[in-house]
């Protein structure tokens, strides 16, 4: 399908992220997921007559936090508007939203793809309240509505039409999800719907400056689906054009069972939302102190740490990126390197056996039981030649996990893991092995130098892993060449 090369795709993403506030955006109701239907519903959530909203300050803080992380301009003067429409899961008949006057403007999210590093431009981030959930499939004759979700605080993060491939979109959502989790803004759980993504996709001939007719694809409940849906859409649209057709402005939904999209609505319904400023909430002004306090309380961002690890600590791009996958990992790494300057070793440990352990046990890095200082001590033991890496990771680490109360050196000693570097003792083992394998020794002496590994292994066995491999190798070479 080479004709695809004539076209380019223009993609914009709208991501809704539920903020990790304890209570809803305008009421004290709990936001916990998975409760019995209609149990987190006060008269305010239900839109009972006479009730009024009250803005949750924590939600404003979280919105600013993600805005600062994305380098947005933070709007100092803010107000909410009402978006009016009727739907059963919208209790008041309007949604309170900042749609027209977002709290965060502009900004970008940095992504790394095979073709390099670049900033995806954002249009805005605004706050709004979530709607309830209409459930159509549990009662034959009725639609049931669960209002637990109604009023939960959301931010909508909207990019400019600045993405050009499904792969970029994939990386953008991955990065954004990492960022909202990193900042404690949103749990990023796409399956539970706390992070939701809609994609606006259009295609045009390369060189064309006008945007093509766009299609909005909804119901993308995993990052994989974002990618698959966009891939499908681009392909579908190009084919339509190539066959002489025109693209109709549509809202489409993604069908994950076969990775295709289908139309839900042909062209935008003529909805007039009659936005006007929400009179129940006075406009609010953000002070510099308020914003600076949020800024000061923010953790170091993945981009900053990546640069630090790569440029200051001398880690490879790959190692640095691996460490920066989750905030918990960088937190752990940052603690470890308070006790050691062997950054490379710390990175190898964390990206290696530590990550393997947490993955196997399905725990988060911040639940990993070995204290950063202990891990640094293990690394120290290796550096000092008292134990080797493979013994440390296969024996000492499990021991530390089982009993964190003892110092690594103590545990290693108790378990008899301290390797022997004393030549006298090692010489005995070496002599023992050489005596045991005369044929191999003869072969070696004839020039089959590769056998050295075998001898080293045998010495290791004889010493029960305690012999320092470096000393063993040197001694073997001496004896065998003699």
């Amino acid at each position, binding site marked *: 399908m080479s004709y695809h090369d004539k076209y380019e795709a223009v993609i914009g993403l709208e991501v809704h992220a539920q903020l990790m506030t304890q209570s809803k955006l305008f009421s004290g109701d709990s936001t916990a997921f998975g409760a019995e239907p209609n149990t987190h519903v006060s*008269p305010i959530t*239900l*839109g*009972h*007559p*006479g*009730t*009024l*909203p*009250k*803005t949750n300050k924590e939600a404003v803080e979280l919105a600013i936090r993600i805005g600062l992380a994305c380098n947005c301009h933070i709007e100092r003067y803010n107000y909410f508007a*009402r978006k*009016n429409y*009727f*739907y*059963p899961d919208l*209790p*008041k*008949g*309007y949604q309170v939203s900042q749609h027209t006057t977002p709290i965060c403007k502009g900004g970008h999210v940095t992504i790394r793809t095979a073709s390099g590093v670049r900033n995806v431009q954002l249009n805005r981030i605004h706050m709004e309240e979530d709607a309830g959930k209409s459930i159509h499939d549990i009662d034959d004759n009725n639609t049931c*509505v669960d209002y637990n979700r109604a009023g939960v605080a959301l931010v909508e993060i909207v990019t400019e039409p600045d993405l050009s491939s499904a792969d970029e979109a994939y990386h953008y959502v991955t990065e954004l999800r990492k960022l909202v989790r990193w900042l404690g803004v949103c749990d990023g759980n796409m399956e539970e719907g706390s992070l939701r993504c809609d994609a606006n996709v259009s295609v045009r001939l390369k060189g064309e400056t006008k945007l093509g007719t766009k299609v909005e694809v909804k119901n993308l409940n995993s990052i994989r689906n974002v990618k698959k849906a966009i891939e499908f859409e681009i392909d579908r649209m190009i084919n339509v054009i190539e066959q002489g057709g025109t693209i109709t402005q549509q809202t489409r939904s993604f069908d994950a069972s076969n990775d295709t999209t289908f139309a839900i609505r042909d062209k935008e319904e003529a909805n*007039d939302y*009659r*936005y*006007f400023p929400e*009179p*129940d*909430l*006075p406009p609010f002004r953000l002070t510099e102190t308020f914003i600076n306090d949020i800024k000061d309380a923010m953790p170091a961002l993945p981009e900053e740490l990546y640069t630090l690890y790569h440029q200051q600590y001398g880690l490879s791009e790959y190692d640095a990126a691996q460490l920066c996958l989750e905030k918990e990992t960088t937190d752990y790494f940052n603690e470890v390197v308070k006790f050691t300057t062997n950054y490379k070793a710390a990175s190898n440990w964390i990206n290696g056996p530590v990550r393997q352990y947490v993955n196997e046990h399905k725990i988060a890095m911040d639940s990993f039981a070995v204290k950063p200082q202990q891990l640094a001590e293990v690394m120290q033991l290796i550096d000092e030649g008292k134990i080797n890496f493979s013994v440390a990771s296969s024996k000492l680490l499990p021991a530390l996990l089982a009993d964190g109360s003892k110092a690594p050196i103590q545990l290693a000693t108790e378990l008899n893991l301290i390797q022997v570097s004393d030549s006298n003792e090692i010489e005995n083992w070496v002599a023992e092995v050489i005596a045991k394998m005369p044929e191999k020794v003869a072969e070696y002496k004839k020039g089959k130098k590769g056998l050295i590994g075998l001898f080293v292994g045998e010495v290791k066995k004889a010493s029960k892993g305690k012999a320092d491999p470096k000393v063993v190798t040197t001694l073997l070479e001496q004896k065998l060449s003699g």
Partner: protein
Amino acid sequence: MFSFSSIEDYVSALQNGETTCEDVVSHYLSVIDSNKHLNAFLEVFADEAAARARQLDQDRNNGKPLGKLHGVVVGLKDVIAYKGHKLSASSKILEGFTSIYNATAVDRLLQEGAIIIGRQNCDEFAMGSSNENSAYGNVLNAADNKRVPGGSSGGSAVAVQAGMCMISLGSDTGGSVRQPADFCGIVGLKPTYGRVSRYGLIAYASSFDQIGIFAKSVADAALTLEVIAGEDDFDSTASKEPVVPYSSLLNSSNYNGAAPKKIGYFKEALEHPGLDPAISQSFNQFLKTLTAQGYIVEPIDFELLEYIVPAYYILTTAEASSNLSRFDGVKYGHRSAVPSEDLADFYKHNRSEGFGKEVKRRIMLGTFVLSAGYFDAYFTKAQQVRNILLKQTSAIFSRFDAIISPTVPTPAFELGSMNNDPIEMFLADIYTVFANLVGIPGISLPLFTHPNGMPFGVQVMTSHFSELALLRISEVFLQISEK
């Protein structure tokens, strides 16, 4: 036979053992019963009020400290939420609805020992000036049963007028407390926007609505305001401005604020063609009396008069169209028995059957002025008028202590006489909507009697949160007019 003069006298009668809350409640229940034809109450909480009265009597006899409104018998306009009680806004759309929480004002009344005796008839969703828009029938003016009591808080005004309760709480979006107070010859106070929490007040127009007070005297209004006013965690538009002890400072000579001396009036308002000649005459005479009493009374140039009613109706209907969207038959209230083809059909049936004519008119008007293509021409313009008015208001209060005007251009009119002319009905709000557009407090004082026998009064307005000055000057005006 109990005779109510003021809360202060009533409470001392209770303390002297001259009467009991129980006797007083039974007195009011019998007055309500003998005035059923006025249709002021939609529901009377007879047993409950009597039980509460007994409890209060017992508490008093046991020496418990008395609340500020101990034993005070209060009626609620049926747009104010009272937990466990029906709440209808005089609309069929809320048929069978019971509030599951208390309005903040109601909480505060109860905390201070008030007895809530019933919920009062009003124009549907507080939309109207004659109480002829209630799904539960007209309310009659006790001074002349052929005439309207005014609206929208008609039932609440008549209840105080006819001695069916001591105090009523109403709501005032464009004059809905002051105008019926004027028509019924009682005191009607609309506090500053945000002085009293709106939590639990069914919204008509959120940026205009304010709970107001009907009373026989300024002192009773002052005391009630003191109880219900103040900041509220449940209403972010409620002001944090501290509440002044209005009742004790009302007549206090220790009050260190300057006595209001400079009174302004809108010249254009008095030249208004709709102004009743007898009202005009009495009002002008009163201005002369004030001058004679040493007040400086001066006209205020006010060229925006003709804009205020249109601006008011554009903004209030816009907000109303959105505020009333929640009444959709999904969660509570009226649901049509007519089968629906689809969701839009379902909404149409519920709302067409549930809302009355005037409410529909205002929802449609409001929807129109917010629509794409009309928003700037209507809503934005009206918002600009409001902003200009706000600026002018601070200019006015830099020169004057109070603004005075008739409350309404005409006395209470006959039932049915205005039904075919909504515009004329709207225009009659000319003197009252100003206070709501700019958020200042206003009061209607019963000073006069029309040659036709009906009472009418004057309206006094002061600057934001200067209720104390407003109440004090009101006391003086009432004394002056009695001389």
